[in-house]
C-alpha cells in the first residue's frame, strides 16, 4: 500500500543542498524505531544501520533538493539569488518559492532588451513586502528557498516537487521498516548535497567502506511527447541502471539486481541515462572500489516543481531493495 501521507510529508519538507536539517529530522523521527544504530556524520548525512555479521551493504538516497540561495538584498527589498543545483533560468520565471521559515516570494525578471539572453542574474525574487524592517529581519545572504508546489495524486501517479530524491528516501524508509531477516550489515544512508555534486555520498562511502552499494534515485523517461530517446517509461517497473555519466554499473551488481527481480517476480526495466549521475558515482570509486548499482524511479519533468512518478514503480523498487538487503 502506497503511504501517500508519508510521501507528501517528505515532498513538502524543506531541504535544499547544504540545508538538510529539517528533512533529516523528519526522516530520523520516521526511522528511529526501526534502526539498530543511527549516526549523523560531519557533513550531515543520516546513516541508519541494521547490524549483521555478514556482508556490508550501503543503500543511499539523497535528502537534498534543488533550490536557490540569496546572494543580495537591495534597499527596496528585492532579492538576488544563485542556483543550488541544476536549474534553468528559463523555467524559473513566475515560480513561487518558499523559505525554511515559511516566507514566500515570486520569481520575476528584469525587462530584457531585444535578443537579450535570459540568465539567472536577470531574475530577482519579490518577497511581497514594502516594510524594510521586515525584509532586513527575515532575509539574509545565505538563506535558501525551494519551489512551492502542492502534492497531488491520482490512482496510479503522483505530482510533487522534490520527488528527486524524496521518493528515493521514501523507498529506503519503507525498506528499512520491512528489513528482512539477514546476516548482512546494512547501512541506509540519507545523504546530503547530491544536487551540487554527490558530496555527502563521497564521505559516507568512505566511512562505511561497504562491499556492495546501491543508490536509489530518480531517472528521466522517454515516454512524453517528443521526449528524449530513452526506453524507460512510467509504469514499467523498477529501473535497473546500466550506465550514466557517473557510473557504469558493476556487471555483478547488474546480474544480482536482475536475478533478484526475476526470482521475486518484480517488474523491472533497464535504464541507460545519457547525462547526470547519482550517489553511486563517488561511492563506487571510494577507497579501493565498491561494486555499485542504482535502482531508479522513472520520473517525468525532473528538476521542476511538478515531477511525476508512478506509485507501482515505487512499490517494485521497494521490493527490489528489500530483496537486495536480504541477499
Amino acid at each position, binding site marked *: 500500500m502506497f503511504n501517500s501521507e508519508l510521501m507528501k510529508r517528505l515532498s513538502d519538507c524543506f531541504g535544499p543542498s547544504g540545508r538538510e536539517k529539517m528533512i533529516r529530522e523528519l526522516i530520523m523521527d520516521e526511522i528511529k524505531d526501526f534502526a539498530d544504530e543511527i549516526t549523523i556524520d*560531519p557533513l550531515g548525512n543520516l546513516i541508519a544501520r541494521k547490524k549483521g555479521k555478514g556482508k556490508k551493504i550501503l543503500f543511499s538516497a539523497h535528502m537534498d533538493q534543488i533550490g536557490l540561495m540569496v546572494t543580495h538584498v537591495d534597499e527596496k527589498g528585492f532579492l538576488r539569488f544563485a542556483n543550488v543545483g541544476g536549474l534553468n533560468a528559463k523555467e524559473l520565471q513566475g515560480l513561487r518559492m518558499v523559505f525554511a521559515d515559511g516566507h514566500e516570494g515570486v520569481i520575476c525578471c528584469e525587462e530584457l532588451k531585444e535578443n537579450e539572453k535570459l540568465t539567472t542574474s536577470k531574475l530577482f525574487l519579490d518577497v511581497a513586502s514594502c516594510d524594510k524592517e521586515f525584509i532586513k529581519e527575515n532575509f539574509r545572504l545565505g538563506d535558501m528557498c525551494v519551489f512551492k508546489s502542492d502534492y497531488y495524486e491520482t490512482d496510479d501517479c503522483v505530482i510533487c516537487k522534490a520527488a528527486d530524491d524524496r521518493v528515493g528516501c521514501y523507498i529506503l524508509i519503507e525498506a528499512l521498516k520491512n528489513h528482512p531477516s539477514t546476516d548482512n550489515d546494512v547501512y541506509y544512508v540519507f545523504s546530503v548535497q547530491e544536487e551540487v555534486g554527490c558530496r555527502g555520498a563521497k564521505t559516507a562511502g*568512505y566511512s562505511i567502506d561497504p562491499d556492495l552499494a546501491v543508490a536509489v534515485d530518480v531517472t528521466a523517461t522517454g515516454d512524453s511527447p517528443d521526449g528524449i530517446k530513452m526506453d524507460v517509461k512510467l509504469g514499467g517497473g523498477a529501473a535497473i541502471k546500466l550506465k550514466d555519466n557517473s557510473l557504469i554499473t558493476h556487471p555483478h551488481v547488474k546480474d544480482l539486481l536482475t536475478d533478484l527481480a526475476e526470482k521475486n517476480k518484480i517488474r523491472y526495466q533497464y535504464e541507460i541515462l545519457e547525462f547526470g549521475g547519482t550517489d553511486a558515482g563517488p561511492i563506487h570509486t571510494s577507497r579501493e572500489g565498491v561494486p555499485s548499482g542504482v535502482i531508479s524511479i522513472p520520473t517525468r519533468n525532473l528538476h521542476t516543481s511538478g515531477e511525476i512518478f508512478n506509485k507501482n514503480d515505487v512499490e517494485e523498487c521497494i521490493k527490489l531493495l528489500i530483496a537486495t538487503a536480504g541477499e
Partner: protein
Amino acid sequence: MFLKELTELAGVSGCEYEVRNYIKDILTRMGCDYYVDKLGNIIAHNKGRKQKTIMVAAHMDEVGLIVSGIDSDGFIKFEAVGGIDPRVLNSKAVFVGEKKIPGIIGSKAIHLMTSDEKGKALPLGKMYIDIGTSSKAETEKLVSIGDYVSFNSKYVEFGDNLIKAKALDDRIGCSIILDLLSMKLDADFYGVFTVMEEVGLRGAETAAYRLEPDLGLVLEGTVCADMPEVDEEDKSTLIGKGAALSLMDNTTVYDIDLVRSIAKIAEDNNINYQYRRSSAGGNDAGAIHKTKSGAKTAAISVPCRYIHSPVCVASKKDIHSVLELTKSVIIENQKGEDHV
C-alpha cells in the same frame, strides 16, 4: 607581514619551490615544527590547547604560463596554467624559467591588425614571449619547453592602505598563516601551505587526507568586483569592508551554522566582515570538506581586485581583518565551547 617577499617569488602551479623554500626558512627561524609531504605541501604545527584538529590552509601556487614551443625566430609559444584571462596577457613583462629570463608578451601591433582583429581579445595562440633573442638556437640556450613563466610585477603600496602585487591569490593567505604561526597562540592548529590549487585543489586533498581535520579554515584572496559598471548585486566582495565569508561556490556549500558562528565571532570582536555574494569560483575548501569522512570547512577571504592578473589590488585593512578573525575562530574553537 611577509607579503612583499612572498608575492615577488615565482610559484606557478606545480612549480612552487621558491615559495616553499622561503616559507620553510621562515618556519625554521620561528622554531615551528613542519614537514613537506609528497606533493610538496608544507604542513606546520602550532601546538597548544586542543579540542579538535584545525587545518588552516592557503595555497602557495599562482596562475601563470608554461612554455610549449619555440619558433624558428626564437619566439616562445605558451599555454596557460590555471585560470588565465587572455585579455590581461598582452604587453606584460614576465620571467621565464628557473633562471628568470626577462621577457615580454607580445603580439602584432595595432597598425597591422585587420578590422576583424581590432577590439577583440587575442587568443593565447596569437601571442608569444619575446626574450630578445633572434634565433631558435639562441632561445634554446636559455629556455626549454616545460619552463614555467610568471608575471614580473613588484609589490607597491598606494592609496588608502592598498597594495598592488601579482599572486595576491593566495600569497595573502600564506602571509596570514605565517603571521598566525608567529604569534605562538596557546591554541592548536595546523598551518598548511598547499600546492596546485589553481589547477584543481590537488594539494589540499592529500594534506587533508593526512591530517583528518575536524575543522578546515581556508584563507584566500577572492574575487572583488566593486568597480564601475558592475551592478550592486553583482559586486562579489567590496574592498576595505573586511573579511569575506563564503556561503557557496562551485566546490562547496559551506556549513551554514559554521559560517554564522564565524560571523558572530567577528561581531563579538568588532572585526569587519562581509558575505561573499558570488557563487562562482572555488577553493581548497572543496577538497578539504569531502576528504575521508568529511570536515566542516569555512573560507575567509581578502577581497582582491583584478585577481589572476599581474596587478592584483587588496587592502591592508582587510588582511588585518582576516588575520584577526581567523585567530579568534581558532581560539574560540580550542576553548571547547560549542561553536561548530
